[in-house]
């Protein structure tokens, strides 16, 4: 049984990886044509889905003990080992199966939706990158693999936000998304380094399992440090408050990519990670409090902003945030099955809602016909609870971007310019930008 699980789990990771290689190598020359890309994407994704489902059922039928599968080792230096391991249990295999199901659906959608689009090949290459990323995150048993997956998700996400290269707005917003992701990645990297430093390996299984309580090998302070860094990493990736500002900006890409990232998977990847390291976080009261705070703040913020957004994609993205906040709170309370169900249900529903976002006129018209009246009769529509300040707060999306700009970016830039001035003073006088150009 274990052998079956190991083989199928390997296929789950390797099939998307092959897809990534093939689409990546052929994308610049459009060698395969739209049909060819369609065929190999279908084959690879269906194979991965079938493999992950098989692994999941095999696991459920087996003795249900966490399986640690060593795929390979990057390098080993004295006692420190850097390895790519898979940790297989119901949670990881379940999330992988859900992700692959959704990726299959979105791929089926995208073949028709992106037909004849100039960026068709680029799109499927970046989608493949995402599939590799999400499978790695789902199945990661070592912090190295987790980090690689985390990065691939972030990179492909930013690239797809900037998919329409001929306009400046997507590039600007992609940069914004990317910079928040960098912050989140930096936190993740720091967590990985600390973990390596304190335990000697990147093995995550010690954090996953509650039964053996090996996280006790970490001191309370160490647990808090790693936990907080992971929470920051998750907050960036899942757009928890105060990092929420980038989410509506990410709606620049083609509809299916917005759907799979910000409706279904990428936005929940953070929640999944929290679920994974729940035992570690539960050990620290402060980390739990931090999660509850982040979740509640996100949820309130999302619900408030979502009520006044006048474009359909922003409205849905704030509605998504509201639920993500609640999921984080559920995890903070130590629940396991509920958040998992919540993630799965929410992902499927939001995916459909995002995919049919351009249909909103049609849908509302149909719904009103069936109800026989307006959805929001103008007499009953509420007007910002009568308080302009509340309405303004919601309309301006809680000033989330300004908040970050003033609280983080501005001080950081000041610091850099001080360093720059210091540098010039000490080293040499560099020509200014204007002089250089002339």
């Amino acid at each position, binding site marked *: 049984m274990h052998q079956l699980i190991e083989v199928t789990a390997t296929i789950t990771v390797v099939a998307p990886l092959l897809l990534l290689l093939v689409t990546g190598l052929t994308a610049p020359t459009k060698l395969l044509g739209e049909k060819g890309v369609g065929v190999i994407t279908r084959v690879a994704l269906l194979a991965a889905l079938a493999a992950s489902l098989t692994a999941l059922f095999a696991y459920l039928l087996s003795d249900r003990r966490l399986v640690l599968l060593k795929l390979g080792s990057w390098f080993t230096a004295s006692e420190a080992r850097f390895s790519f391991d898979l940790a297989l249990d119901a949670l990881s295999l379940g999330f992988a199966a859900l992700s692959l199901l959704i990726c299959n659906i979105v791929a089926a959608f995208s073949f028709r939706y992106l037909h004849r689009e100039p960026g068709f090949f680029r799109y499927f290459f970046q989608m493949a990158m995402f599939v590799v990323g999400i499978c790695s995150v789902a199945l990661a048993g070592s912090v190295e693999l987790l980090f690689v997956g985390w990065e691939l998700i972030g990179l492909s996400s930013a690239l797809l936000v900037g998919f329409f290269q001929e306009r400046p707005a997507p590039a600007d917003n992609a940069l914004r998304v990317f910079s928040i992701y960098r912050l989140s990645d930096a936190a993740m990297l720091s967590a990985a380094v600390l973990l390596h430093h304190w335990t000697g390996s990147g093995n995550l299984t010690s954090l996953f399992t509650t039964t053996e309580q090996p996280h006790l090998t970490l001191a309370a302070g160490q647990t808090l440090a790693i936990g907080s860094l992971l929470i920051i990493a998750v907050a960036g990736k899942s757009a928890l408050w105060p990092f929420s500002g980038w989410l509506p900006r990410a709606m620049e890409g083609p509809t299916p990519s917005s759907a799979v990232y910000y409706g279904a998977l990428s936005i929940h990847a953070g929640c999944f990670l929290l679920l994974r390291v729940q035992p570690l976080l539960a050990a620290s009261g402060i980390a739990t409090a931090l999660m509850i705070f982040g979740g509640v703040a996100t949820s309130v913020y999302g619900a408030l902003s979502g009520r006044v957004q006048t474009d359909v994609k922003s409205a849905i993205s704030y509605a998504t945030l509201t639920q993500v*906040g609640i999921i984080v709170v559920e995890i903070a309370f130590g629940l396991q099955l509920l958040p998992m169900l919540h993630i799965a249900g929410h992902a499927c529903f939001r995916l459909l809602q995002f995919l049919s976002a351009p249909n909103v006129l049609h849908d509302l018209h149909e719904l009103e016909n069936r109800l026989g009246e307006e959805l929001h009769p103008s007499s009953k529509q509420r007007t910002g609870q009568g308080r302009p300040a509340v309405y303004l707060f919601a309309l301006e999306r809680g000033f989330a971007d300004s908040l970050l700009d003033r609280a983080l970016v501005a001080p950081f830039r000041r610091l850099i310019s001080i360093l720059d001035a210091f540098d010039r003073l000490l080293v040499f006088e560099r020509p200014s930008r204007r002089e250089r150009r002339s």
Partner: protein
Amino acid sequence: MPVRPGNERAPAAAASRSKLERVVRQIGHLLPAQGPINVFIHHNTLHAFEHLPFDEAVLEASRLFGCQPYLSEDRYRQELRHGRIHEADVNAVLAAELGPRADATVLANLSRLELRRRIAIFGIPQRHGPALRWTLEETNVLKRLRADLPAEAQNALGLGNPHNGGRAEQARYIRRLWDSCRRAIERAANVSPAVQPAPIRHRDLLLAAFELDIDQWVHPPLIRATSAFLDQGLADWAMPGRERGLYRCFVDLYRSRLARWCGPIGKELQRSLCAEHDEQQDSWTSLARSLECLGLAADEWEPFLRAEALALRGFAGMIHQFELRPDRVPARAVPAQLVDFFAVRLLILRAALSYAAPAAGYQGSLAELRPWLRNHLPQPPAPSADDRAWPLFHLAQLGGLNVAHVDNLNAEEIARVEAELGEFDQTARRRLLHRAYERRLRQRYFDALAQHRPQPVSKPAFQVVFCIDEREESIRRHLEEVDPSVETFGIAGFFGVAMYYRGVTDAHARPLCPVAIRPRHFVAEINTASASGLRARLLRLSEQVGALVDKNVHLGSRRARRGAAIFAVLGALWVIPLVLRVVFPWLHRALRRSYDSLQLRRVRLAIEHQEAQRPPLGEQVGFTTEEMTEIVFSQLAATGIRQRFAPLVLILGHGSTSLNNPHESAHDCGACGGGRGGPNARAFAQMANLPQVRAALDARGLHIPSEVWFVGGERNTASNDIALYDTELAPNHVHALLRQAINSLESARRREAHERCRRFDNAAPSLTPAASLRHVQTRSADLAQPRPEFGHATNALCLIGRRSRTRGLFLDRRAFLVSYDANGDPDGAQLDQLLGAVVPVVAGISLEYYFGYVDPTNYGSGTKLPHNVTALVGVMDGAQSDLRTGLPWQMLEIHEPVRLSIVVEAKTALIRRLLEQRAELKRLVDHGWVFLATLDPASGEIVELDATGEHRYVPEHALAVCPGSSRAHYEGRRGHLPFVALGAATARSNAPAD
């Protein structure tokens, strides 16, 4: 007694106020005229420029809007290579353009005509500055002759065949040619750099001088506030205080202390709004004050405000449309005013400038900012010797000038050549090539019309009236092929019935008629079936439950607690509709239809006038007998149907359904104002069947035999579904005919779907007609399908005349076909009505497609994929952008941007007389927004009419004949097809000799 300072300035203020009003009104004309997207109306994108000739208008608009006037030169040359344009077309257009100036010698021994011909056909690559330097250094231009050089030029250069000559020799020669061109320029007089007028907006000056784009701060709050103000029900909470207008609403909202957090300009904005609020101004005074603050003299108001409005033209235009046509606002009226938009925009602009000016190093008042910025503008460099030598170098190659020739050119000659090149610049070349491009299609059309032998139907078994839409051309052709006993007609698809209509399941009534008409009548569909019985009750219950669930899911998904409950408990169930709708759309459609078919409905239109009832919209319920008589008479009188009524006449309106398509309504019937024409067709049939209407028609001289029966219906142009209404009311004697008609329509719609599938790249060429029908049906029900159909794309032609002229002619779904029979209209009164109603509509469609195609990003709305529905009135690109008002690229893709060629089958003299009476039409024709020609009803001779007079058309090429049906002609081919006569048709005698 102290004099209040305001008093003495009152008259001046009033004068400036009235000037400001005039300015704002003028700018309104330039803004996009597209209203809320749920009713998409096709109209000339450059309607505001119709007072200018077409070629001037597109240039003027390209300056003002920053848009393309024509396709690119390269694109036209590609069409030349593919044979879409012939060199003969270029020559003909060039000769006509130059007239007597054609033969003058310009350079060496080349006439102006020959020189321009070579430039137009072979082109001079547009390069200067760094791009030219790169081309010279990194490419082969100085090592080889141009590969596409005409043979005569090669011979003249004395190099023989450059492909055979030694590479090194050729390289040496070409290098010497370049050097001599450089020397020639050095001999020539200096030219000064082209002086660009300084831009008028602060933003453009700041951008040019300091690379600082202040629109990045102005637009986000403006877009958010404007779309919240216009919102038709997408957000749960409406903007507070909307009823007071955008300006007051904005001031009250953003003067809250919180607004200081609103981006980097928040502090400035909040401070100025507090002042604004304290002074209690209205938007006009606020706007005047802002203009003063910004240092704008009264003569600059118009260009400045115009430029500011055009920077966010989609939203400005939508505000303007709300102001102009409150009756077209979908759900709730808001007091929108363009002046409010300007006042708000300038308030934000002032805040942005107060923030940006210090950053650029400026400390004074805003009023003095622009002169200061103008002094900081970078100076454009004069063209270098290389820049000027480059065109000469190409000219030498194209004209076959060798080194000695070039060395002999004196300064005067070079000046003459440069002047010639300046006159025949890129725009002139594009215009020329565009005219050639249009000419080819027009010639093909005229050739086909002039040579096709008319095919009248003497005794039709049944008749079908379609809309004039060019998408009906194919189904008419196929129907006639399937059943040669059928005769078809084309009438504008609202069939003269202008009404507000509410179907039995509709929540709202909507107008169904051309936009220009405001209907007076209201017609409702009523359910006459008895609604008792268990099955009916169960169905009703299931529908109510379904609606309730949908409502709660729709709203609940956005709420925290309700949403959490739904998702955590039921969420995973969504995988079923998800997979069904995305992966198996055909299955979803089938399930949906079988559920719908369970409905027990027996519905009728309440068409007759009800004196006692008050209509919810319009002035009266139903039509009186006189009104119905007038409608039926006006629609049928001129079509030629009156001479030979068949016992069964079908009236088919059209509409289109598609999913995930905010532009769904753009595929519907234009004559119904972007609505579906089924109810109109049904109402018309019902009217024409009424005995009292028949009697009244008799009195007016239109006799409809008593055995004739009309049946209304609707064709879905996307899925090709055809529904016929009220067939159970048909009298017994037409039952057999009705069955025949239904069978013929069934095979016709399959064949039509098959023909349409050839344009869809992802429909395999091997599909059978039945599979094609399933394919188009799935397309219209597929969330993932951005091209449910191609709409009006490829439209290019129009015939107002008898169907017999085009019956059996393959026109590739490109022609609007309007039925008109000159025999029934001796004084031209019917034709006059027809021209007035039809020409503006078809011209609007053709021009909207023209502009959308030549500049898909600026005139069109770009690719559909990132579109984001906003406020339920329009779409933005991605997260936030201006409202995109044009056509999306997926609708345009296969179009050919040409002006419409309208041919009227009537005497030339009559048309001339009618044009004199209709100034608007005459302007369209004389200014070249459409091409107009007449087709003599008797002789079949074609005469082209334009501003310069009448031109008899002489056929160029013989009309090809394709034995067999349409399918034999189109099968296996994807692109545009030549027009051919189908079947055993023989060409007429006036074919050219070739």
